[in-house]
């Protein structure tokens, strides 16, 4: 079973996971010690309240003078109020400490991600955010309850030891079962349970996707009953396993409660046989019961701990990366950079076909290249290679100074035909391949190559802030000019630059959103401008106008356009058709016309 193997790996690494996560608690250790003591105090007050009340009643039954009870009466009232107040202070202290810790964890994770290839899926991101929340759960719902229960248990056994060693021993044995053995069992069951449920849930999620997104195909081919039956079988299996797991988990709860009662009676009987006074027999029994209930909270803590194990492991993995080095690398050539892809390939997963295979592309200064192809063909991956967001798994992506001869800036588009075949171009060029782009200063590389990329994000901030990202020193006039180029001029005139755009531009229309992202790319004004479907969401007439305006603004500087539309490509020196990660066709200016697009 892969589940067992995975569990073994997890077990091996659990120490280092905890070490990495808790390293962030170390600078705040006194706050956490304080919170732990407050938590223990809260539980002790609850236990003490029941013990003191029992002592009060048992003593009162002997009808002593009232003065003998006065301390107990005060104690009962003080503990009753104290417990609530302690709980309140404890929760504030622990939350403040853990939020301070999470602040550091977030900053560090963000820094670690800066140097990582981008995550491609939105759900991976929100999972990461909830993974960080698991750090909070670890402290508040696992470690603090454990620390509090542990301290109270030690204090209880210590107090019993003062009364009688045998009684203390019985109490200790009972607490070890309810507070250690059963929680360990509960954690084990929880881990085992999620190992069994995870693959079933994944299988059912696939069924759901097939039934919902494949609804038309299933209906047309009359295959719905078959796939519905398959989904139902998985759902039933899921329900069966969930019920079985619930039975075991609640059996552990029942055992803990019953065993708490057994311990209490055993303590009472032992104390009686050791000749302790009658009043204390009742106090010990009630206090033991209260301690047993405390142990029940450990079951919840243990289960929570098992539940967040996966999240913590992912967090620890990110935290384990070395702190990002200060930016460095070769200075980015300014003026005229010549990019080349030579047999470049990218493979995201070992068991899947490559996203890009053996791609050659030559981008001397001033060249305009259009990349077309169906979705999933590798177009955006190609752009990611040029930005340096990903490095090729095979082949080379290089940049060098512009060769002396092959292309004359200012007249690149006049030479129809040009050199469509990069190897040839290179052979009669400088011969030198240039420097792999990974060697350049990553933070400054965008000055050479950037643009509007597929994952362009609008921040929940003002239009101005979103634009300034591309060029922090830009003046308002420059911002408005960029907007005008992207066809957003009228809108900015009407609304100004201080309008907030909402979460990922949610308060803009699709077209406005796209144009704002385009304006930002225009403003960045790199040597090579990348445009990934820049006019998506615009109607065809607007799309052509906006693209023409951006190309006019670029003048004789390089543009790489990714698109699925075949109009307006006459302005490009080369058209590259990708499918399945390979170049299917490539041609020069006349290509589109010849293909009847």
């Amino acid at each position, binding site marked *: 079973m892969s589940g067992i193997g995975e569990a073994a790996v997890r077990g091996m690494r659990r120490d280092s996971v905890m070490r990495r996560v808790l390293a962030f608690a170390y600078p705040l250790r006194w706050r956490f010690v304080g919170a732990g003591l407050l938590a223990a105090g809260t539980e002790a007050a609850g236990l003490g*309240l029941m013990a003191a009340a029992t002592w*009060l*009643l048992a003593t009162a*039954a002997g009808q*002593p003078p*009232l003065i003998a*009870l006065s301390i107990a009466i005060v104690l*009962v*009232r003080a503990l*009753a109020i104290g417990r609530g107040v302690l709980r*309140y202070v404890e929760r504030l202290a622990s939350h403040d400490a853990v*939020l*301070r810790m999470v*602040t550091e964890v977030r900053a560090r994770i*963000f820094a670690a*991600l*800066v140097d990582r290839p981008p995550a491609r899926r939105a759900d991976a*991101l929100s999972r990461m955010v909830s993974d960080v929340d698991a750090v909070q759960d670890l402290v508040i719902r696992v470690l603090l309850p454990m620390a509090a229960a542990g301290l109270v248990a030690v204090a209880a056994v210590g107090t019993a030891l003062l009364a009688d060693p045998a009684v203390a021993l019985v109490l200790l044995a009972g607490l070890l079962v309810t507070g250690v053995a059963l929680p360990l069992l509960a954690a084990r069951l929880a881990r085992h349970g999620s190992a069994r449920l995870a693959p079933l849930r994944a299988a*059912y999620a696939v069924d759901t996707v*097939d039934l*919902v997104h*494949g*609804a*038309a*195909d*299933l*209906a*047309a081919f009359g295959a719905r009953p078959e*796939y*519905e039956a398959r989904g139902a079988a998985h*759902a*039933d299996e*899921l329900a069966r396993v969930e*019920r079985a797991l*619930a*039975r075991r988990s*609640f059996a552990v709860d029942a055992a803990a*409660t*019953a065993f708490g*009662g057994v311990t209490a009676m055993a303590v009472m009987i032992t104390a*009686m046989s050791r000749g302790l006074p009658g*009043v204390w*027999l009742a106090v010990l*029994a009630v206090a033991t019961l209260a301690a047993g209930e405390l142990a029940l909270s450990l079951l919840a803590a243990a289960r929570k701990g098992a539940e967040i194990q996966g999240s913590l492991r992912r967090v620890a993995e990110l935290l384990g990366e070395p702190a990002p080095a200060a930016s460095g690398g070769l200075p980015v050539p300014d003026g005229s950079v010549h990019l080349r892809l030579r047999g470049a390939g990218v493979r995201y997963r070992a068991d*899947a076909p490559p996203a890009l295979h053996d791609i050659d592309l030559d981008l001397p200064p001033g060249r305009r290249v259009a990349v077309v192809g*169906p979705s999933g063909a590798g177009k955006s991956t190609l752009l990611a290679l040029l*930005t340096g967001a990903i490095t090729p798994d095979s082949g080379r992506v290089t940049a060098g100074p512009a060769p002396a001869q092959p292309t004359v800036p200012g007249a690149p588009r006049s030479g129809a035909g040009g050199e469509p075949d990069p190897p040839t171009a290179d052979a009669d060029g400088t011969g030198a391949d240039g420097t792999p782009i990974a060697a350049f200063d990553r*933070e400054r590389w*965008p000055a050479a190559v*950037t643009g509007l*990329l597929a*994952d362009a994000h*609008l*921040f929940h901030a003002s239009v101005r802030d979103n634009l300034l990202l591309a060029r*922090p020193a830009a003046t308002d006039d420059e911002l408005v000019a960029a907007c005008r180029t992207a066809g957003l001029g009228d809108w900015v005139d009407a609304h100004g630059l201080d309008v907030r755009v909402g*979460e990922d531009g949610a308060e803009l229309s699709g077209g406005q959103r796209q144009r704002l992202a385009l304006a*930002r790319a225009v403003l960045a004004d790199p040597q090579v401008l990348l445009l990934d479907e820049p006019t998506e969401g615009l109607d065809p007439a607007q799309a052509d106008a906006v693209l023409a305006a951006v190309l006019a603004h670029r003048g004789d500087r390089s543009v790489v356009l990714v698109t699925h539309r075949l109009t307006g490509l006459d302005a490009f020196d080369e058209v590259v*058709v990708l*499918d399945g990660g390979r170049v299917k*066709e490539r041609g020069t200016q006349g290509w589109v016309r010849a293909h009847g697009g």
Partner: protein
Amino acid sequence: MDSVARPFDPRLLRQVPSTRRDVVLLGVLGAAVAITVVTAAAALARALAAAVELRLDPAAITGFLLALTARAALTSGLGVVAARMAATVKASLRADLLGAVGRRGPGWLAGQRAGELATLTGRGLDALDGYFTGYLPQLVLGVTVPVGVLAMLAFADLASAVIVLVTLPLIPIFGILVGWQTRIATERQWRRLSMLGGHFLDMLSGLPTLKAFGRARAQVTAVREMADRHREATMRTLRIAFLSALVLELVGTISVALVAVPVGLRLLGGGMTLTAAFTVLLLTPEAYAPLRAAGTKFHASMEGLTALDQAFTLLAAAGGGSAGGTRTAPRGGVIELRGVTVAYERTTALRDVDLTIRPGERIALVGPSGGGKSTLLDLLLGFTTPTAGRILVDGVDLAELDLDGWRRQLGWVPQRAHLFADTLAANIALGTPDAPRERIAQAARAAALGPVVDALPQGLDTVLGERGHGLSSGERQRLALARAFLRDAPLLLLDEPTARLDAASEQAVVSSTLSLVEGRTALLVAHRPALLAAATRVVRIDQGTLHELVTA
């Protein structure tokens, strides 16, 4: 929000009738737990009172342990029933939601709804576990246990019973009051809080963009500062929010003091037995415990209630007649569209369309995208029903036909076929799972999929990833054609089989399409001249109206 905030959603009993039995069972178990709580306390009180007098009362000790074990078992039983209920409700809602997709047909699933449904059915409903196993049992015990405790207290000591009776309602009342206060206080900070809380996700989502403009490192400090401001804002809210926990805690503990001290004084005066006094002391906290537990778990179970509400809302929207009738579809007759109009909320896709499709005709549909070509195919597939007008199959209205039977006569090649997470062979044999292996291989070859299959190490038995991960769009399209070949249906509906293909794939798809339509009735949406050559008639659809171009 109001419908969500209720502790129990009565629609559950209507939607999943089998839960009625479980609800009754929960009530019975809850009552039984109350009895064992009272019994255990009374027995323990006797055992303790005996112990104070240095007597061992074996009957009382045994009674206590038996009652406590019964209580533990019954409480667990309550949890198991609740968990079973959760599992049943999830399985049943999942079946209902997916059944609604089947009943209402693919047309119902436009856009947003498909994603929402897939997420809700897949993982969203798992949030119900917290509600059912955490909150619901405590809610039941919050009713039964206080009743049992109060009855016993009234019997043991009336004064204590009155104290508990008066203070008990303080828990829900203060819970509501403080919750209300908290909401007012938090609403003031809500905009700010959610803005700050969302900031980390915003920054993570925008990381590629930050990197693209060389601004990522500069943002690390901003992330730290923002997180710290988030902490300060959160703490301001928590100071108020935790007051509710403080009140719940205090009501419980102060009642113990309120009961214990007067009882102690009465014992002192000799007006009460020690057994009765212990019974009161042990029972008092039990009265408050379930309500407090329910209160602390309510927020955690909100997510489950929201998922439940979402499911009921979707199911209510899915109500309404299922498509299709019961009459057996006639085979191979003339198909007539008479004055058919299809109107959606904002647009009219087809306007008063007449079209006659005679057996053996191959009609090419041309026109701008969005003109209504795909709607016409959807009508014949039964995915869309006419707003006005009728579709007649050999003189019988399509609406009266058994849709499954009718669809058995159709071969459909959509623009973008869904590929199922299954083997290549199973994907081709969609709807005919017991097709002989040889015929599947034949269909694959006919659709020019042969070389693709041969190149795969496991051939037809290769398992495709989720949504056909791993096939190019050309291969995808050929697989859709292979489905149609295997189907061997008399009427073919092809929706731009060559859209978005490169030249090489296009050629392969065109030639297999031509051999597929040979000798069959076909409606094909087409742009490419090569496909138009196969048509006997060409019809142009523009802005919902039909124009005959060529009649061969």
